[in-house]
């Protein structure tokens, strides 16, 4: 069976900057893939490429390809790609505060998707919209549909954005840090609702986040991106039990745990390098405690991680498997 979304060896550049370098990942139906990395690692760019919207931000594919349901996006006409967007691929943006058209009632912004892609009448589209909003646990959905965006809270707006993404009955949802801009209390709720709906409907979900805690909570698989390259990928269980890449281990170390001693929450020293000056060899080596001189000289290939079988990591000195 072909994967729903298959990104193979994708490289993307904006101008002279090579921002993505040979990234591969895939999302199956009914599966949630977490795409993780710090800001500037290329997560959002991967999402934009998967939506076929790179030209909008002046980006271009310089290598590799994105396949949706077995079809190469680059070989489709723009009209075909447009037919996928909203219909088969739903998109949830990072910042719900600015994602909605401020001078259009929120219900209409959801209606348009099912009217355009499913050919529903105005009344049928609205009925569907209210139904979706109710499923997203929006109280008094019919009344809220008549509201303007500025009248809603951030959490409500994000539910509207999710309803927009669901309205075309898509096979795949791409959610770019859907909770980053929200209050912590709302974050968990939104993730739960989104994860639940995806599971119920057997859709695929590409969940972009920088929060390993969220990944552990809802994802089946995880892909870790660092400075435009894939650091590690695999099933969530084994990777959380025994990360092979020091960067993955460091990200997991950033999750706060119950009963942690004060001051024991770790960060990762240093910052993600700028695309103008990616380090040689393994791009993580300047921040890596385990780096040796060969890390700066040699680009580590993606290799199967440990004996667990599932998953790969790009590190010359993979961490030993725990336990």
């Amino acid at each position, binding site marked *: 069976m072909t994967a729903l979304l298959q990104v193979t060896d994708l490289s993307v550049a904006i101008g002279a900057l090579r921002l993505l370098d040979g990234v591969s990942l895939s999302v199956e139906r009914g599966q949630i893939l977490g795409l993780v990395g710090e800001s500037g690692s290329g997560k959002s760019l991967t999402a934009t490429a998967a939506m076929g919207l790179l030209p909008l931000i002046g980006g271009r594919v310089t290598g590799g390809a994105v396949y949706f349901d077995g079809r190469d996006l680059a070989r489709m006409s723009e009209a075909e790609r447009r037919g996928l967007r909203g219909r088969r691929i739903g998109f949830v943006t990072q910042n719900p505060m600015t994602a909605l058209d401020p*001078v259009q009632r929120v219900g209409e912004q959801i209606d348009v998707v099912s009217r355009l892609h499913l050919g529903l009448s105005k009344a049928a589209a609205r009925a569907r919209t209210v139904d979706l909003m109710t499923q997203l646990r929006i109280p008094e959905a019919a009344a809220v549909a008549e509201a303007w965006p500025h009248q809603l809270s951030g959490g409500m707006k994000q539910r509207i954005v999710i309803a927009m993404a669901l309205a075309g009955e898509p096979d795949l949802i791409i959610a770019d840090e859907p909770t980053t801009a929200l209050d912590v209390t709302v974050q968990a709720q939104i993730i739960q609702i989104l994860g639940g709906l995806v599971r119920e409907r057997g859709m695929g979900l590409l969940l972009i986040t920088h929060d390993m805690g969220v990944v552990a909570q809802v994802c089946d698989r995880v892909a870790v991106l660092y400075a435009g390259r894939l650091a590690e990928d695999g099933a969530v269980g084994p990777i959380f039990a025994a990360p092979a890449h020091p960067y993955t281990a460091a990200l997991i170390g950033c999750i706060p745990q119950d009963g942690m001693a004060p001051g024991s929450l770790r960060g990762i020293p240093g910052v993600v390098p700028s695309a103008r000056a990616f380090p040689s060899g393994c791009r993580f080596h300047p921040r890596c405690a385990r780096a040796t001189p060969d890390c700066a000289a040699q680009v580590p290939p993606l290799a199967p991680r440990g004996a667990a079988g599932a998953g790969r990591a790009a590190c010359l000195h993979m961490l030993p498997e725990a336990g």
Partner: protein
Amino acid sequence: MLSYLIRRILMLVPVFLAVSVIIFGILHFIPGDPVDNLLKVGSSPGARAEMEARYGLDRPLPVQYGLWLGKVLQGDLGTAIVARRPVADLIAQALPHSLRLGGLALLFSTVMGVGLGIVAALNRDRWPDRLVMGGVLLGSTLPSFWLGLILMLVFSVWLGWFPVSGARNAAALVLPVLTIGLGGTALVARITRVSMIEAAGRDFVTLLHAKGLSPLRIQLLHVLRHALIPVVTILALRIGWILGGAVTVEVVFARAGLGTLLIKSLGQHDYPVVQACLLMLAMAVMLGTLLGDILQAMMDARVRAAME
């Protein structure tokens, strides 16, 4: 909304009073007075005093102002000193000409300006954009009285397409409308273009693309919709400006209108007429501002929310 409207209209009252003081004051500080125009050369001081008393010009300025304002508020604009006719008659005769000219100029600059702005924004940094922006620069820097003379020279004198002056037929309107409208066209085109480009870069536009809407639909139904909010405000503000701008153009083209009446009366120091004309122009500016605010509120729910 209604209470906002009432508040907004009440706010115009002090503005109106301030404007009336300024109009009245400035006029009376200009050297010379209408009596000079009425008296025969060599008249006695007694005749002059009698004439001044007849028009109330011998009383202290504040009293004159109070009497004038009181009458104006009752709708009585007074009698023209030199023309010896009710000022209201003179205005009623002149105003339709000015409104026709100004209205057509406003319509012209709206349609042309928004159209050219859209073309420029959709072709950003390509030749149609550069062409439009070049025209905008030209259109916004040429003074209207000079532009009027050049248009007259080219289209009336050389080509003979339109009459040089007057207001006899529709053809006579073309050049004055162009003269006033081109500056507005440039302004509106520039604002439409820049607002569209600004709106197109907003986050929500990305999501519209992600919903699979066609680029044209996004541009016209969403981006333009946003871009028009500032454009409409500017246009409403220009209502007064265009009537005021018509003053010189009316004179250049020797058309009847508020401007011609104003200039003529100014030369004769015919206070009541000048005051009434200036008051009309000031009212047009005030009403334009009010209209702009109302239109903005109608187009943007956020503005309505801010009013509550």
